[in-house]
């Protein structure tokens, strides 16, 4: 077996036991990248010094393992573009807190992965460096915006990856690529040094081969950052402790069971929920606020924040001017500028914030009854390449099931819950918990993963 196929946990244990060496892992990962990156277009920039850095680390918990990082995390002295040519030659003078913590724990940035430009999208098709192809089937999209990171995991171009989610950008590509995507609570992982998209919902997180790997990685990323006032002061538990908790007795609310357009995915979810029921969990159909309102809220709030966050790229700094913005960025800047304008701000932005509060209250109500909430991650399998053409609201529709929890800041995880043998594509299940309860989400996800055959690595042949 190629050592590139190792999970983070396996790699750490194998290195510890001396079963293989770090350079063997690098050799196999590099080989995979060299063979397929030109076709799949996963990495935009490779860190040429990765292996040297790894060799010189000393004994740190992550042992120098190669990690893929979405190209909107600023990495000092390593080009960071956010997949927009506006930043074509931008080499950051500072490091994001998340990657700094990753490095301090012994992770090595192997390369920077493709995304929708500025993280605007759910397909990587808005990337100004070309779309990424789904490693499970190259006729399909990987999802987005963290499509490059999800694909890097699926293609064994790394041992694990970092991504960011604003509304679905970790979980949706994870679902489409058949990997695990953990979006922590808003404020659990610092946003400092990440090219901002929608500041009030941006949440850095992980894309990994297993639930266990996401718990290991989150341990090193989470925590208050004095450089980010929106990070919470809450203590960070050891998330790996949640991996083997008994979940019997938990009460799960099954959401969006009655929503139109989920005819393919919901029967699968219902079938898979039986697995959890066998583990002693009580599952009930629950009704939540219609996610279509979340799309409206998210679209207005996010466009507004985007129009402000992108204003700094005014052509004076960073080399390239505003004419380098792609169509999607231009659309969002214009829409956001409009919704924040005098006379419209009340009608749009302020109303959206009020509706956002209603979603928060709705989740509060649901969590008074249920320990976690489960729904499909994406309405369907990965879409074919080119699917976004002429669909300005593509991302919003694909992320519809995730936007309510995203605008509410809740933690959620995608785990593969079905594998179509014919297409080699996956469906994903989304497990959401209350604020700061990643551990509960991880516990349920880990139990499900252990008792089902859908994980490609755990059940590798």
């Amino acid at each position: 077996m190629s050592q590139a196929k190792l999970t983070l946990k396996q790699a750490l244990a194998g290195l510890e036991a001396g079963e293989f060496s770090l350079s063997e892992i690098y050799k196999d990962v590099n080989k995979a990248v060299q063979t397929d990156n030109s076709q799949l277009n996963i990495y935009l920039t490779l860190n040429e010094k990765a292996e040297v850095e790894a060799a010189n680390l000393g004994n740190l918990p992550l042992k120098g393992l190669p990690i893929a990082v979405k190209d909107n995390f600023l990495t000092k002295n390593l080009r960071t573009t956010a997949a927009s040519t506006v930043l074509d030659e931008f080499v950051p003078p500072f490091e994001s807190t998340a990657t700094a913590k990753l490095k301090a724990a012994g992770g090595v940035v192997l390369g920077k992965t493709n995304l929708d430009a500025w993280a605007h999208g759910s397909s990587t098709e808005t990337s100004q460096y070309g779309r990424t192809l789904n490693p499970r089937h190259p006729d399909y999209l990987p999802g987005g915006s963290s499509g490059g990171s999800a694909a890097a995991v699926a293609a064994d171009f790394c041992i694990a990856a970092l991504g960011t989610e604003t509304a679905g950008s970790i979980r949706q590509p994870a679902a489409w690529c058949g990997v695990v995507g953990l979006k922590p609570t808003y404020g659990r992982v610092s946003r400092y040094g990440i090219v901002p998209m929608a500041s009030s919902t941006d949440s850095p997180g992980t894309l990994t081969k297993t639930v266990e790997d996401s718990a290991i990685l989150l341990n090193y990323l989470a925590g208050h950052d004095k450089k980010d006032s929106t990070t919470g002061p809450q203590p960070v538990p050891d998330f790996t402790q949640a991996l083997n908790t008994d979940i019997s007795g938990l009460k799960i609310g099954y959401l969006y069971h009655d929503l139109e357009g989920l005819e393919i995915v919901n029967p699968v979810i219902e079938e898979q929920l039986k697995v959890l029921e066998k583990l002693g969990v009580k599952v009930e159909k629950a009704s939540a606020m219609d996610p279509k309102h979340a799309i409206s809220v998210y679209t207005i709030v996010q466009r507004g924040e985007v129009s402000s966050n992108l204003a700094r790229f005014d052509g004076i700094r960073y080399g390239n001017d505003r004419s380098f913005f792609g169509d999607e960025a231009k659309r969002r800047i214009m829409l956001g500028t409009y919704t924040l304008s005098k006379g419209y701000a009340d009608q749009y932005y302020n109303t959206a914030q009020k509706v956002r509060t209603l979603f928060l209250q709705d989740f509060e109500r649901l969590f008074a009854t249920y320990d976690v909430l489960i729904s499909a991650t994406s309405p369907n399998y990965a879409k074919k390449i080119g699917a976004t053409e002429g669909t300005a609201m593509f991302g919003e529709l694909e992320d519809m099931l995730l936007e309510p929890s995203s605008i509410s800041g809740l933690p959620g995880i995608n785990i593969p819950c079905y594998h179509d043998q014919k297409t080699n594509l996956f469906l994903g299940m989304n497990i959401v918990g209350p604020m700061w309860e990643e551990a509960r989400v991880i516990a349920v996800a880990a139990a499900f993963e252990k008792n089902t055959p859908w994980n490609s690595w755990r059940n590798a042949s």
Partner: protein
Amino acid sequence: MTKLDHYKLICGLEVHAELKTNSKMFCGCKNDPFGATKPNSYTCPVCLGLPGGLPVANKKAIEWTIKLGLALGCKINLFSKFDRKNYFYPDLPKGYQISQYDLPFCYDGLVETSEGLVRITRIHLEEDTGKLLHKEVAGKKVSLIDFNRSSVPLIEIVTEPDITSPTQAKEYGKKIRQILRYLEIADADMEQGGMRLEANISLAKTDANDLPTYKVEVKNINSFRFMENAIKYEMERHAALLEKGKTPAQETRGWNPTTGKTFPQRTKETAEDYRYFPDPDLPPIVFSKAQIETIRQSIPELADEKARRWQKEFDIEPRYATMLTANRHKAEWLETVFASAQATDTTPNQLAKAIINKKIEIKKGEAANKVIARYQKLTATDNVTEEELQTAIAKVVQANTEAVTRFKNGETKLLGFFMGQVMRELGKKVDAPALRQKLLQEIA
């Protein structure tokens, strides 16, 4: 020529002042834009507006803003927040300024001037911008940006249109500067731009009750005298237009100190749209009443209060008290001098008068008894015998016969000259009233 009699001034002021906190408003960089020896030496990803840079609010700056608000009698918003003010300018690296929109820290205050009360609408806290430098580099005209000032804490104090004269505007401005300095929260150096003034000016018919329909904003005035002159100039200009049946254009103007005139900068037909919204990078700020009380306790006695107390406790004339309380540290020291003087023959008011008329030199921080001793020495008279005095006067009269004649012909101001001459002749200090009387006997 003046048509001004038909009109009254309607004027509100906006005062900006940089707070002198150690670090900047939203990052840990040193806050010392005027002390920096090199441009862009006090910068970081946050104040350079780099992507991924995030603001962290300076607690001290917020407390100081509230302190100023309390000193100006403002109400305090216990729940407040920062908002983004979006606009483009090369000195604004993020494309927006972090400011406050609908929930400023302070509102509804009051400032007393000799010409009446001025209501404070609001005081809010924001970040200053960078500074553009227009230079020639290698023969090419270029604009350079210095970000040392970027994100320095800046307060804006806005008044209601209560100011009715150019002199009142000046007095108000000086008072605000004095309070900022008393509270030790700002140096308020006008020349360097640490304090900037803007006046919103319009004229209304003397008997009108409604506010005028137009308003002219004169921006970036960096001296109180310039502000006074700019308002005077605008009043004349508006009156001339109004007399012709025209309404002055709604616009922003600048002040040219060389020509002594204002000049148009840009017209302001409609309000600008800054697309304000709450900054998602900064959580709202919540204060308890107890925290506000703690800040209130930290406010020192201000100049007005001190002057009133001096009048009562030391019997110092109001005008002297006002002048000598202008500077907080000097006043605090002077107070020890006045208190010591109460135990002597010298009254605090005598001392105050002597200090203002520069009769005695004072060194701040000097022991009180030394100052009092110097004053007493200045006013003390030596013992002079009647005979000594007679001889001296005779000598002076003899040597200045011409002056004596002129004195007799009505040039009374020469008396001082004679008094000086006599004292010089004696080489001693004589009790002035006694000498005057004696001299008059001799020469009148």
